[in-house]
């Protein structure tokens, strides 16, 4: 009986601890990488408008896309379960969405790294479901796409 109890409680607890330790480490490194890459693209802005604020002639334009699938760790999934009881902001999922969106925009820029600007940037989020039940909860795909434009002269 005690071994059964140990297994049925021990494994989920172990997974939550592993999720907490490795998950927060992965998240921290991801944020470091995002910050470094965002700094590199600071002079190549992504606009959500169809026109940028310059009248410089455009040399070429093409579609740029970037996407990523990210998931939360077991610890955050566990914590958010409590939040669902009391209601309110689910902070543990906010960082997931934030990471996904910023990563997708960065990948869009990296797909056309020499463009001067990215016009009409659109973000689309969709949830990923699992074939075997609700295992995929907390997994999202973010797609960022826009029109990468190269101007005639470098700024």
């Amino acid at each position: 009986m005690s071994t059964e109890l140990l297994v049925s409680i021990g494994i989920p607890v172990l997974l939550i601890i592993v999720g907490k330790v490795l998950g927060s480490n992965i998240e921290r490194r991801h944020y470091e990488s995002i910050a470094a890459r965002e700094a590199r693209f600071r002079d190549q802005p992504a606009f959500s408008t169809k026109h940028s604020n310059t009248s410089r002639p455009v040399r070429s334009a093409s579609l740029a896309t970037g996407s990523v699938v990210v998931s939360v760790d077991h610890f955050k999934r566990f914590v958010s379960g409590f939040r669902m009881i009391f209601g309110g902001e689910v902070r543990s999922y906010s960082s997931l969405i934030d990471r996904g969106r910023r990563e997708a925009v960065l990948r869009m820029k990296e797909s056309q790294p020499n463009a001067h600007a990215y016009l009409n940037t659109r973000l689309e989020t969709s949830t990923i479901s699992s074939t075997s039940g609700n295992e995929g909860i907390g997994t999202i795909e973010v797609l960022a796409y826009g029109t990468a434009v190269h101007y005639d002269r470098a700024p």
Partner: protein
Amino acid sequence: MILTNIDSVPGRQIVQHFGLVQGSTIRAKHFGRDFAAGLKNIVGGELKGYTELLQESRAEATSRMVAQARELGANAVINVRFTTSSVAQGASEILSYGTAVLVE
């Protein structure tokens, strides 16, 4: 073939419109990828298998749209949009659509 998601091709003049073109594909994940993703789910972070799967399907949908535009004699597709909808558990449809045009 030039693709943009704004209503013009910057720096070029549109001479002819051909109307809506679209391409779509429905993909299911396979068991192996689902299993690997299940393991990765414990620690969180990027699920590369799924990222690649969705990128491949989006490329497929886009190439079908481009093929349709080429058939009409267009050399650009403007106002391109992507949408994703889930058809069934574990399968999703990716649609890409836009307006086929001829530019100078």
